[in-house]
């Protein structure tokens, strides 16, 4: 068979595969692990957005472990899930709280990834834990960004420090932290303007905010969270890398996970940049924030398959 024919056949297979019956692969109890089988898995991995490299690695793993054997789907699935769970495993406590004084959390990300909403959710979560929260609206660039956070602050009854449009965001951050210290607040969350990671000037501005916070409390910011849109593809790796270079991110918040996007790029990010996922956003309301759980995340990655069991 020429490779063209193989190609066409593969194509037909994909059409069937899309959003459907993966169990077909395992009709009649088990399947022989051959090249076609591996190619099918490769495509399943690709569709989660985990990227070519990670997908290839997992397929290679299947190939070395099951090659030329007839296997049950569950055996393969379990092995893959186990591998990913180990990779994505988290420490129990996602936020490192300062022993005394306010814990400073800086939130960064590209435009439209969901920073402001995430901050509202974080604030609410801390409030539920009985903590006092001060918000710093250091996104002085985008039109009405300050208003957006202010509306959230009013809804949640949290204190907020703002600055006029176009003013220096670092000064807003500074004042927010000063306010938090004066009020003996437990947590100070600093919002920043969305920026693409390739905009050097803006990334330097972010570094400056980070530095300014560190001048008031040496360990601050205690956490730097990068908000990542779950629909993001391979560009997420570049985002994680550049933001970590600029402000030493300590973890990810995977926002908008309530759609059909799987957010598999965090697998590649964990591998290549090392950033763990700390929280996931699963809706538009303030309570729609969940602690990241590797187990259920991995299950969700392959839920199309599980649904057919």
């Amino acid at each position: 068979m020429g490779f063209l024919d193989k190609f066409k056949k593969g194509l037909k297979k994909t059409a069937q595969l899309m959003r459907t019956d993966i169990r077909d692969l395992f009709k009649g109890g088990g399947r022989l692990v051959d090249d076609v089988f591996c190619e099918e898995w490769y495509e399943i991995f690709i569709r989660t957005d985990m990227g070519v490299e990670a997908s290839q690695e997992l397929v290679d793993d299947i190939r070395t472990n099951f090659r030329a054997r007839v296997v049950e789907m569950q055996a393969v699935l379990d092995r893959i899930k186990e591998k990913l769970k180990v990779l994505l495993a988290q420490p129990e406590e996602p936020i490192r709280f300062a022993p005394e004084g306010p814990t400073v959390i800086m939130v960064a990300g590209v435009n439209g990834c969901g920073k402001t909403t995430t901050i509202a959710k974080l604030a609410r979560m801390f409030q539920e834990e009985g903590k006092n929260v001060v918000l710093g609206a250091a996104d002085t660039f985008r039109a009405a960004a300050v208003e957006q956070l202010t509306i959230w602050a009013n809804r949640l009854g949290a204190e907020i420090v703002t600055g006029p449009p176009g003013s220096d965001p670092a000064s807003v951050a500074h004042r927010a932290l000063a306010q938090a210290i004066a009020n003996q607040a437990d947590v100070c969350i600093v919002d920043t303007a969305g920026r693409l990671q390739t905009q050097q000037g803006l990334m330097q501005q972010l570094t400056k905010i980070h530095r300014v916070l560190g001048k008031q409390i040496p360990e601050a910011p205690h956490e730097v969270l990068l908000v990542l849109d779950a629909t993001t593809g391979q560009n997420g790796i570049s985002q994680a890398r550049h933001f970590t270079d600029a402000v030493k991110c300590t973890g990810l918040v995977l926002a908008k996970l309530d759609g059909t996007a799987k957010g598999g790029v965090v697998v590649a990010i964990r591998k290549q940049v090392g950033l763990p996922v700390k929280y996931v956003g699963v809706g538009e309301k303030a309570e729609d924030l969940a602690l990241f759980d590797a187990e259920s995340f991995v299950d969700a990655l392959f839920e199309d398959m599980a649904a057919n069991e």
Partner: protein
Amino acid sequence: MFEALQENLSSALRTLRGTAVLTESNMREGLRTVHRALLEADVSLPAVKAFMDRVTQQAVGERVLKAIDPSKQLVYIVYQELVNLMGPVDHSMHLGGEVSILMLCGLQGSGKTTTCGKLGGLIKQRGRQPMLVAADLQRPAAIQQLQILGEQLELPVYADLNAQDPVRLCQAAVRQAKALGANVLILDTAGRLHVDRELMEQLTQIDNRVGPDQVYLVVDAMTGQDAVHSAQAFNEALELDGVIMTKLDGDARGGAALSVKHVTGVPIKFIGTGEHLDALEEFHPDRMAGRILGMGDIVTLVEQAQQKFDQEEMAKQQARMLKGQFTLDDFKKMLGQVGKLGPLQKVMGYIPGFGQMQKMMDAMGADAEGDMKRLVGVIDSMTPDERADPTKVVDLSRRRRIAAGAGVQPHEVNDLVKQFDLMSGMMRQMAGMGIRQRMKAMQQLAQDGMNPNAALSKKKIGTGKRLTSTDRAKMKKIRDRELRKKKREAKKR
């Protein structure tokens, strides 16, 4: 934007370029790389499959094997298929009639509100009266955001802070538009997930009751494999007329452009290339495909240059250059004009052969923008005499004064003067050249630029006094021939 895809494809095709004959096996290697490159660029799987299938069919056919230069043919096939997949284009917004209504929809955070403003600015520029409608009642402060954008662009914004129902709001906006004499309405709807039935239903209702003439889907260029799902869902709910792709100014590979086109079949109309309100460009698949293959996007650059360069100023400069009078003032003006084109890094991406250099500069952390500002600062600190002929006039004490004035180190002033000296020499040379030679000189310049350690260096020019060995041999031959001739003639006599 497509750099990474471009890089991967060029490397894949480079491996093919060397081979004289294309066989199925070496072709397979190249195509495999193309396949991988597309996936890494976030092109969705179905779109990749369709693309590869078509390319493979053509590439492995007899046509290629019999072609004079098969590798070139393959490059052409890949290029042509990219153009086909992303085209055909239709930039028209079909504005006409009493009031045209454009509706923007998309996922949260894809950039609808900003695009709404940009689109309004563009339409106004084209001589119509747009009005923006804040129909996003979901996100806090979305209305204020649109109002601020409207203020910046001097466009009317229809908003109602107490509105509950976006359908009614849009209907009221249409009435208001008629009263105000606006003839284009742009509806900024709330971002929503395509799986949210209730909100998708609401969108369909706006579509039915308000009857927009055009419905555009706003898509984030960074979207991954999920692009096919959301685009399909929006297309089913609304029958899209076009797509606007945003955030293409970052390093996103933009594979979503291919995916969305593949599933919806509607043309990509515009691309957002920056945060500023004029950063909305028409989408050109041929340029994009050319960029993917590393051919550079010179057409876009020329177009932008035509828009932004001050024509008269250009003509003056050229005249001066032709005469060989090139001063630091001219240099400064040139810097200013380049600055108008946009971020230097972006501009370089457009020029063939400069893509590589741009990457290198990024890797070195070179800050072209900042360097340019510093250069201007140094020039500003000079007297007119110094600017006219810096090489002769600037001495040690002047150098120190200029450096202090510009807030730079004295050696930076020196660097500038040296560079200027070399450049003005080059300009004088180029002034005497024909267009072909000039292009050649430019390319040489680009190549020299690839070496990070070398600044501009003076080219060695032949003095005409020394000859190469072949020349000497030739001369000797001629001399000998003359000698023999003389001898013969002497004998005859």
